[in-house]
């Protein structure tokens, strides 16, 4: 309808978009690493023999899984300062994403733990390993391998969630794209390139994940 594409401004700002992409990956990586700690603790806790511990984990997981990530981000960034805890943008976003991913990763690790055959644990105990050694050297590696696909897709979906960081002015890819839009009005071009960057990254990560899965055969 009489619209001519002109990618000049987008290419001129391409380095900013790439920088934003990198920042998004960094945010996702930081949150998935911290979230994994919560997830591992909660995962092991959710198969513990104590009923209280199991219900506590289940309350956390249920609440977070039914809560929009955007609300969690806003709560930590805008509402926590009211309670006397002020974090800067990146710190509060990583905190929000960590709390959020912790719940999902706890489910991922729980499923991984359940998938470890009982006989393997019994065999480890029979050859004289302590409970801690069994968990550390036998159960955890098998669990991690079995959890790998779900772990990977959680990371990919967290990376996509980093676009929400734009709403609290963290200069990641979506933020940069909005900024270029405001400066140049090249809306179609900017969103096309930004979306392409997201898609390419997600597809690459999915391919890398498949490669990893092939490399380490499932137990």
């Amino acid at each position: 309808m009489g619209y001519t594409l002109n990618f000049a401004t987008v290419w001129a700002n391409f380095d900013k978009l790439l920088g934003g992409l990198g920042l998004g990956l960094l945010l996702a990586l930081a949150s998935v690493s911290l979230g994994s700690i919560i997830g591992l603790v909660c995962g092991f806790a959710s198969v513990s023999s104590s009923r209280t511990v199991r219900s506590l984990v289940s309350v956390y997981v249920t609440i977070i899984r039914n809560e929009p990530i955007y609300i969690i981000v806003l709560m930590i960034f805008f509402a926590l300062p009211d309670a006397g805890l002020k974090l800067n943008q990146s710190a509060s976003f990583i905190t929000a994403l960590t709390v959020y991913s912790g719940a999902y990763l706890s489910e991922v690790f729980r499923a991984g733990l359940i998938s470890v055959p009982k006989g393997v644990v019994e065999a480890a105990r029979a050859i004289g390993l302590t409970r801690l050694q069994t968990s550390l050297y036998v159960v955890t590696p098998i669990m991690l391998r079995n959890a790998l696909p779900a772990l990977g897709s959680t990371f990919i979906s967290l990376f996509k969630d980093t676009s929400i960081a734009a709403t609290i002015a963290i200069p990641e890819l979506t933020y940069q794209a909005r900024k270029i839009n405001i400066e140049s009005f090249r809306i179609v071009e900017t969103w096309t390139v930004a979306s392409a960057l997201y898609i390419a990254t997600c597809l690459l990560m999915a391919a890398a994940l498949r490669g990893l899965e092939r490399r380490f055969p499932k137990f």
Partner: protein
Amino acid sequence: MSSFLNEVWIARYPLLSGLMQTIGSSVASIVLGTLLGTVVGLLIVYGPLAVRWICRIYIDILRGTPVLVLILTTFYMPAVIGLKLGTFFAGIIALTLFCGAHVAEILRGALQSIPRGQTEGARSIGLTFPQTLAYVLLPQAMRSILPTWINTGVELVKASTLLSVIGVGELLLKTQEVISRNFMSMQFYLFAGAVYFVLNFGIERLGKAIERRVAFR
């Protein structure tokens, strides 16, 4: 606490209309997205090769883009080529496309996991392809996609919060407007969080109840 309840009471109409918008946009995009996803899901399994490729590209693009980017794109892009979409309408298109891709992928997985013998059996007793689909394949697929589909519903309610970014007056935007008036950010974000929890937890429970009913029949 009493001052908070008082503020909630003062803001009851905006909050209620926000809740209605949240429910409306979620329901609309779940219904439309499920229709779209069913068509795409069937095409990607049974369609000709070229159509299958197009469906694959649609699914990969939609699943590889963050929902926020999708919402912003459907809101800003059509305006450039002279198409004026309202915020609510643009938002529903974005969420429908998002939902459709997920439903299509779930349906593909379910259809492909049905043993081949089922199709062969149905064809050999003389059912046509549409009949096989309607009486043999889809009922089995429906049952196995139910849990994931319910999950997609919860995802959509959660994603609808992002519509506030383009100015759809759903619950989160209304909450933010209320906060900008009384500055009770902690209380009102917790309040909105509680409403979303009740909504999503309700969907999840309802889903579980339906699942139990259709599980072994």
